[in-house]
């Protein structure tokens, strides 16, 4: 299972920024565009050994908080 700290760092890395907060979204981070969205999906897939790909709604969430919620509901987050 992922720790919140690792997940936060992974999202920041995917978006090529130093850090993100729970309040961040595609409206607050310039690089959270199509490439950023795809990078997040790819990172999450690697970190969860592919399990995140079974969460269909994960493709259409655009905020850090929403990602945390979905991974938590799927039992992938500590």
């Amino acid at each position, binding site marked *: 299972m992922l720790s919140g700290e690792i997940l936060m760092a992974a999202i920041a890395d995917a978006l090529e920024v130093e850090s993100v907060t729970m309040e961040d979204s*595609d409206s607050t981070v310039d*690089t*959270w*565009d*199509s*490439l*950023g*969205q*795809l990078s997040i999906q790819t990172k999450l897939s690697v970190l969860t050994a592919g399990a995140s790909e079974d969460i*269909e709604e994960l*493709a*259409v*969430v*655009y905020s850090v908080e929403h990602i945390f919620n979905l991974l938590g509901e799927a039992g992938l987050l500590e």
Partner: protein
Amino acid sequence: MIFDFQASAFALGENQIPVSTICEDSGRDYSRTLAKAGFEWVYRTGKSEVDFFSSFLLSHLFLNPGETVIFVNQSGASSIPGLAPRVFANVPRAEHANLIEISDGCTGFLRAFLVADSLLSSGSSKAVTIICGEIYSKFIDNYSTSAPIFSDAISQIRLTAGRGFSLRNYGVLNSFQDHEFISVAGGQDGSTFRMDGAKVLGWTSRSARKMATLLLAAEEYDLKGIASWFFHQGSKVVVENVAAALGAREGTYFSAGQIGNTSSSSIPIGLIQSQSTLNANESIGLLAFGVGLSMIGLVLEADQ
């Protein structure tokens, strides 16, 4: 139906602009932009829709009595009458043309294609010419996120009745509540084109998976068995992601790096550029997505 490529053509805006220059002018990271959108050049016209489209049609469109013309456009669709009467005013023999005007963006060619298939299959028309034309540049300045993406273009594909390809299956997916993800705020000239990249990628990715189910619903075949796919050339990252989500066989599906996103003309341009390699013995898939939001996919089977 048969693709009559001898009577098919396209034209891009007369001004060829390096995307690197757009990025330099607007302080945008060119490498990242190229990795994302994939376009090295875009083309813009300084002409109006009427002038740009009319000059193309006068050179390329030959209307025969009893044939149908379907005109697809959104950028100039804000007046009464629609744009078609003004664009076709000086086209020879237009007075007898069964002219249908469709207001649609990136999915416009495939929407018109479905109408054309019905007209040809029923015998109502012996030939249908689909004209797609858009000038999105009037909504875009170099600081817009869409600046390194869109090109102005017009295309013409002529379809005739006969043994070539038959429509085997198609699917339509709409998400109209999300129409603002790709839109022009305020409505017309002087307004700004908005495209929300992350949301468009998310929507197309999820929709492509649903589309695969729709296209397979009534048939027992593998989408990987389709020899050639022609995708709307929205951007490199979206096209590659859609192809993977759809389950298309491994391949290179982004081909418009030197052309730009020409909206409804992108699939016609892809077909025209691939005409010599289109094998009449193989099935082909066409998939468009964009403004609406809408996604349309269809499979054409080669007549044996």
